[in-house]
Structure formats: structure tokens, C-alpha cells
């Protein structure tokens, strides 16, 4: 390569090296002078969840199934309704269904549900608080109970069958909570 060509290439390289920084620095020169201030905050939302669980057991997110074998009389079972959310609820909606398992009768017996508010069941039909009947069903029913329940609060419920002959069946207990059953929205200034 001749000397003149080498010089020519050097000139191009030098011009390029000078031009690139100029191109990139031009917008910075034109940028407006600003002042910035910032801060952060963490925000979280609540959960509204209520479940039915066997008496005095840790709750889990599933339907409670009561299994009955009635033989010439009544039977009783106890379970709890627990608020496992992070916010108090004003009411709960129960979904209960009876299903025969032995096929021996034309329809399942009637089951009555009674809550012991502000207390506990110490024996059959013995509530240390206030006993409130939630409802009864032979096949299926759902009912909304206007009982406030704080976070981690429990409502103790007694389920009782009506007297009848031998039969085996199950009762499922489900609970739903809509956002309408959560405390009303509030405005907090601080």
C-alpha cells in the first residue's frame, strides 16, 4: 500500500474517532436541566377467605365432608368455621349438600346446623355462648349467616341428624365469601 493511501486511511480513522463522540454528546448539550426527587412505598392487598374444618384442627382450603352412619336415632358432629384471610368478614355463605352413600333410603335425612357464637360446644346441645341455628337440609341448601368473624376467628358448629333408621350418607360443607361480605371500604389519612 502506498504512503499516500496510508495517510488517506489515517485521516478517515481520525475523523471518525472525532465525529462519533460529537454525535453522541450533542443531545446531552441540548438536554434540559432538571431536578428530581423520589421515594418509595410498599402496598399490599387483603385476602378474604373462610373455610370449614374439623373441630379444633388446622384449616385447609378444601370442602369439609362429614360422614354419617345413623342407626335408629340421631347423630352429632362438630366442625369449625375459620377466617383464614387477612381481613374481618361481616357474614359467610354456607353451601351444604347431603348425599346418601348406601342407597337404602329414598332421600337423606334432615341435618340441622347450629352455631355457638362467642363460645364453644362442651357437649351435645351444650353451648357456652349463644346457640344460633344456621339452617337445615335434607338434600342441599345454602344460606348466608350474618355473623362477623375476625381474622383467625372461629365459629363452632354442631351438625345434628333427625331420628331415622339405618342409613349412611355424607354431608359436604362449603363456604364462600364475596368482597361484599368484607368490611366496607374505608378512607384512612395518616
Amino acid at each position, binding site marked *: 500500500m502506498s504512503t499516500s493511501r496510508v495517510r488517506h486511511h489515517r485521516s478517515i480513522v481520525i475523523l471518525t474517532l472525532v465525529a462519533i463522540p460529537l454525535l453522541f454528546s450533542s443531545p446531552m448539550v441540548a438536554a434540559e436541566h432538571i*431536578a428530581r*426527587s423520589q421515594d418509595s412505598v410498599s402496598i399490599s392487598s387483603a385476602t378474604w377467605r*373462610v373455610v370449614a374444618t374439623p373441630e379444633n384442627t388446622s384449616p*385447609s382450603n378444601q370442602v369439609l365432608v362429614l360422614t354419617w352412619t345413623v342407626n335408629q336415632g340421631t347423630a352429632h358432629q362438630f366442625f369449625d368455621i375459620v377466617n383464614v384471610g387477612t381481613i374481618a368478614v361481616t357474614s359467610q355463605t354456607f353451601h351444604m349438600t347431603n348425599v346418601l352413600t348406601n342407597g337404602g333410603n329414598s332421600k337423606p335425612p334432615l341435618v340441622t346446623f347450629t352455631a355457638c357464637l362467642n363460645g364453644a360446644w362442651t357437649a351435645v346441645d351444650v353451648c357456652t355462648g349463644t346457640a344460633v341455628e344456621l339452617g337445615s337440609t335434607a338434600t342441599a341448601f345454602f344460606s348466608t349467616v350474618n355473623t362477623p368473624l375476625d381474622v383467625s376467628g372461629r365459629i363452632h358448629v354442631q351438625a345434628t341428624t333427625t331420628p331415622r333408621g339405618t342409613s349412611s350418607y355424607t354431608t359436604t360443607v362449603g363456604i364462600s365469601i364475596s368482597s361484599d361480605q368484607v368490611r366496607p371500604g374505608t378512607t384512612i389519612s*395518616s
Partner: protein
Amino acid sequence: MAITIEKVDTGDRKKRAAWRPIALAVIGASVLITTGVGVFATLSASVNNVTPQAVNSGTLELSLSDNGAGFSNQIANLAPGDIVNRFVTLVNSGSLEGKDLTFSVASTGSTALITDGASPATTKALKVSVERCTIAWTPSTGACGGTTTTLLAPTTLAAAASSQNLISGAVDVAEEIYLLIKVELPDQSETTVNGVPPAFTVQGGAVDVTYTFIQSQRVAETTNS
């Protein structure tokens, strides 16, 4: 024995020889011009200010302080319909007038709290709004003893990620701007069955939100005085 020494000139040497007289002429002319001026200079006068003129540049600063809980305390356990008011004070703490105060929000965390749900989701995300009071807010009550102005209508966190204009005009030096930052979880219907929330839920979400305020420098001025 006779020895012959042959002198060989290259082409470069010939070129140098040709430039030598020209270079000498230029050098000579420079010397003549320089010395000639000196010869003809006679008198000169100068003056300068006795006290040096002080020149300094301004500063553009924007400070942010909590009024009450402000941004220092988290907002926890929001239920649908909840509104949390937090109060901060901005001050143009520099020596230059500012202008065009803007606001933006950077959010990370639960998508349902940042962006409104798209079908089939119907969730409604957190919204932020900004109000201004002419005097300091009372944090405990949320009361403004002066006049309030809405600077930003309720806007989802996602939408507030872009720069939102709060004040278009000037921000004077030392001007205090008393702001209410309102965060709300819109009222919405959502049912949990046996402890299991629906597929699209606003429950149990968490976001970290960074609020950024920016003011620009006033327009550059030419002053005659």
C-alpha cells in the same frame, strides 16, 4: 590509481532544495513585520475593574419530605373500596426558579394491582391521584385549610408510569407544594370459595411503588442592567 566519487541526488533532495529559498523568504518577512510593528507602537492605555465581578451559577433542586406517614410507611391489607391518603411536601430548594413539575410512578409486583384486568379478568388495579392544598395538609384528618386543586385524577399504576404533568407553570424558589397522594383499591366483586380465590384476583397482592417528581429549569434569560 584514481578514485572517482559519483554524487547521486535523489528526487527528495531536489524538492528540498527548491523549498529552501521560499522558506527563508517567509522567515525574513515575519521578522520584518514583527519588528516593524514594535518600532511604530508608541502609546497605549488600559483600564480594569478594581473589584472583580462575581459571577456564579444557580442551582436547581427539588426536595421531598413526608408530612405525617408519607411514603415512609407501607400501605397494607387494602380491601376493595379502601382509600389511603398520604401527604408529602415538595420544595424548590435550589436558587433557580423551576417549571413544569411532573410526576411518574414505577411499580413492581402483582400485575393485578398494577394493570386493570383484560377479559376474561375483570380485576381493577390500584389507582393513584394527586391533590394540592395551598397550605399544609393536616395528615390525621386529611383536611386542607386552604384551597385544594386536583393535579392528577385517579390513574392506574400502569398508566401513571408515564410522566404526568402536575404543574405547567413556574415553581418559585423556596416554593412549598403541599401534596396529597391518594391510593385506592377500586370497589370490585370477587368471591372466594372454600379458601380459594378466583383465577384472576386482587387478593394477597403486593407492589413496591416509587414516586418520582421532576421539575425543569426555568427558561434561560438574557438580562440587561
